[in-house]
């Protein structure tokens, strides 16, 4: 029963994918969209069932299908583990997934390849579920690579434009760098523990019997973290995420905000018992997370593309989550993942709604005053913005505050960095809101003429998500956290929970004040002074550096990609030619000797006989006269 249900969980999106890919052309756009949404909705229902069951019993559901691979040291099962952590993730993957599917029916309905869009989305949900459901690292890796593939397909969904394809390719390749790290990590884990099953590893560590080489374990943790960096867009592998905004907006919402990018956090949380053993690596994670958070926030300050701002904000928020992971506060990170999923999905979908209304325009400099036309969109957007800025009582406040609080207790420097990032977040998010929804419309007349509120299929998900963004904090209120309790079975060493004392309230205050400062700055600049960011050519100085994302892409291009091409050219033009020339040269040398030899064969009998006689002489001399 459980096995069948668990399979249904997976088969529903698979069926959606297969139907849409093979028969989608014959279906109408709405029908294929409905089918796709239904598939995910079924999964959501099943997830809900399991969630309630596990929440009641506290016993995870294990499904083991068959032995997938056999290594000398260990076997790899094709098995699934539905425990608290994976179900939590499944809940919002399928839940938000369903909403975004519904949203897409309307958003994509003009596209000729809509059936493919839903096929890919379903496939993504499938792989995401495999990722979180897997009972071992290899199954997670299937999902891990699978979502990468879907991300590739969806970023490059409008494949006629080669820039989009470039972005898709970049995302896939950068992810693959991380994947290699992940793979190496798996190798080491497998070698050390003779298993890649989470439960086995956990038991071995818990029993404390096994003699585990800590140095190797550290390397493994580092490798796994590299994998997480790739998927969750951390320094140095984050540059693909902003580019990934080339994909349709629902994709950005689902994959590049709510679900896929959190896979790295999922993985580290999954393996919390491993990371707990390697404090050095945890420290690295915290630092990388903090720096990513600050850097992305900085870049976000100067972006003018509405989706780019959101993308950098995503990177920044992910950085905060990693910071929490680095402090061993897995529950906190997970909490922020969930609230972030709500408000960021809402933000992306809202921006999608705006872009929809603007007929594809994404530059905020050409927007403004949309509040009047798009009421619902504005309201939901505003709620989410307040949430991300960390104002109480919105969900973001609770999760972000917990992160900062943890940071404060562990490392003051990182706390400052995190707080700075939060202030910046508040600033650029409100900059976004003000530029988009306030003041007067700055676009063309034609655009203005077409401005309209989005249809119900688009606004409905927005409303649901906005509500969640509003109340989502309830799952882990300071002091009495349902989430911490829920996750306790999967977290080996729960984070220390600080009683709510003066320090804590003071910290909350600081955070709120910081957010307000950010909002205030934005207000002065864009409402009071009614500034509009300058055109590209007019950007100068430090702003230009920030606007151009610190030239990281260019640096990568110059330091990594170009040299690889240069080496390739060297190989192609020099090495290959040399080796080939050598081989041909041997043949040519032989032929040359043959050609020269022809002069010896000069046709003169006298000469032939001379050689004959000399040969005879030397033979006799050699044998008889030596």
């Amino acid at each position, binding site marked *: 029963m459980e096995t069948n249900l668990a399979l249904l969980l997976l088969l529903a999106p698979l069926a959606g994918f297969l139907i849409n890919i093979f028969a989608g052309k014959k279906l109408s756009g709405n029908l294929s969209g409905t089918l796709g949404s239904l598939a995910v909705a079924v999964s959501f229902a099943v997830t809900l069932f399991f969630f309630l069951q596990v929440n009641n019993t506290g016993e995870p559901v294990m499904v083991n299908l068959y032995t997938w691979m056999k290594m000398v040291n260990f076997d790899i099962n094709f098995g699934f583990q539905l425990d608290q952590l994976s179900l939590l993730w499944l809940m919002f993957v399928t839940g938000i997934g369903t909403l975004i599917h519904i949203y897409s029916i309307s958003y994509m309905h003009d596209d000729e390849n809509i059936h493919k869009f839903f096929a890919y989305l379903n496939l993504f949900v499938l792989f995401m579920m495999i990722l979180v459901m897997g009972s071992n690292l290899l199954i997670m890796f299937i999902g891990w690579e699978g979502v990468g593939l879907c991300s590739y397909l969806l970023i490059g969904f409008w494949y006629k434009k080669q820039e989009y394809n470039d972005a898709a390719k970049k995302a896939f390749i950068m992810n693959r760098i991380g994947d290699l790290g992940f793979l190496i990590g798996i190798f080491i884990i497998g070698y050390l523990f003779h298993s890649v099953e989470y439960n086995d590893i956990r038991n071995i560590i818990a029993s404390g019997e096994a003699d585990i080489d800590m140095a190797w374990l550290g390397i493994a943790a580092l490798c796994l973290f590299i994998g997480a960096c790739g998927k969750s867009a951390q320094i140095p592998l984050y540059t693909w995420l902003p580019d990934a905004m080339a994909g349709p907006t629902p994709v950005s919402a689902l994959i590049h905000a709510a679900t896929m990018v959190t896979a790295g956090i999922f993985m580290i949380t999954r393996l919390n018992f491993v990371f707990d053993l390697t404090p050095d690596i945890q420290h690295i994670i915290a630092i990388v997370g903090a720096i990513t958070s600050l850097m992305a926030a900085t870049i976000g300050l100067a972006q003018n593309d509405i989706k780019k701002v959101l993308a950098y904000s995503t990177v920044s928020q992910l950085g905060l989550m990693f910071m929490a992971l680095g402090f061993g506060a897995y529950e906190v990170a997970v909490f922020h993942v969930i609230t972030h999923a709500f408000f960021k999905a809402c933000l992306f979908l809202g921006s999608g709604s705006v872009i929809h209304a603007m007929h594809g325009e994404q530059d905020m400099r050409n927007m403004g005053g949309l509040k009047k036309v798009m009421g619902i969109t504005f309201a939901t957007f505003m709620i989410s913005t307040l949430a991300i800025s960390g104002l109480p009582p919105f969900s973001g406040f609770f999760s972000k505050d917990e992160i900062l609080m943890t940071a404060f207790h562990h490392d003051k420097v990182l706390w400052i960095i995190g707080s700075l990032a939060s202030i910046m977040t508040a600033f650029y998010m409100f900059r976004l809101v003000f530029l988009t929804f306030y003041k007067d419309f700055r676009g063309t007349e034609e655009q203005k003429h077409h401005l309209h509120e989005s249809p119900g299929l688009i606004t409905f998900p927005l409303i649901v998500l906005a509500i969640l963004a509003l109340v989502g904090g309830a799952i882990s209120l300071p002091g009495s956290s349902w989430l911490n309790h829920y996750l306790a079975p999967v977290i080996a060493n729960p984070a220390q929970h600080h009683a709510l004392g003066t320090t804590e309230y003071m910290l909350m205050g600081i955070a709120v004040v910081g957010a307000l400062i950010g909002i205030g700055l934005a207000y002065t600049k864009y409402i009071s002074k009614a500034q509009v960011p300058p055109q590209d050519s007019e950007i100068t100085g430090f702003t230009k550096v920030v606007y151009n994302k610190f030239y990281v892409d260019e640096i990568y291009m110059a330091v990594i990609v170009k040299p690889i091409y240069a080496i390739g050219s060297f190989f192609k033009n020099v090495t290959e030619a040399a080796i080939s020339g050598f081989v041909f040269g041997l043949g040519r040398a032989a032929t040359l000797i043959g050609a020269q030899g*022809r002069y010896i064969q*000069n*046709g*003169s*009998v*006298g000469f032939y006989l001379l050689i004959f*006689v000399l040969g005879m002489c030397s033979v006799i001399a050699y044998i008889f006269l030596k």
Partner: protein
Amino acid sequence: MENILQEIGIDNYIYLSALLFCVGAFGVLYRRNAIVMFMSIEIMLNAVNLLLVAFSTYHQDAAGQVFVFFSMAVAAAEVAVGLAILVAVYRNISNIDIDNLKKLKG
């Protein structure tokens, strides 16, 4: 008449034959007139014949001398064929200078 080898010794005959043989070989190398080259080859064969006879006497065995008859037959046959070829060559190029036969080479 007592046997000559008691006086002279087989070695001297070997040297003589070897020298004569070398002279024949030298003739083949030295000249370019085909017919003189034939003659030189005859000298070589005669050197061998002389050697055979010497050995025949040395072993006091008739086989050596019998072999000389075969050798002569071979020499005669060779000369007959050789001269036939020579005539054919002469018909074509009107001389028998061996250095004119250099068409086949390389």
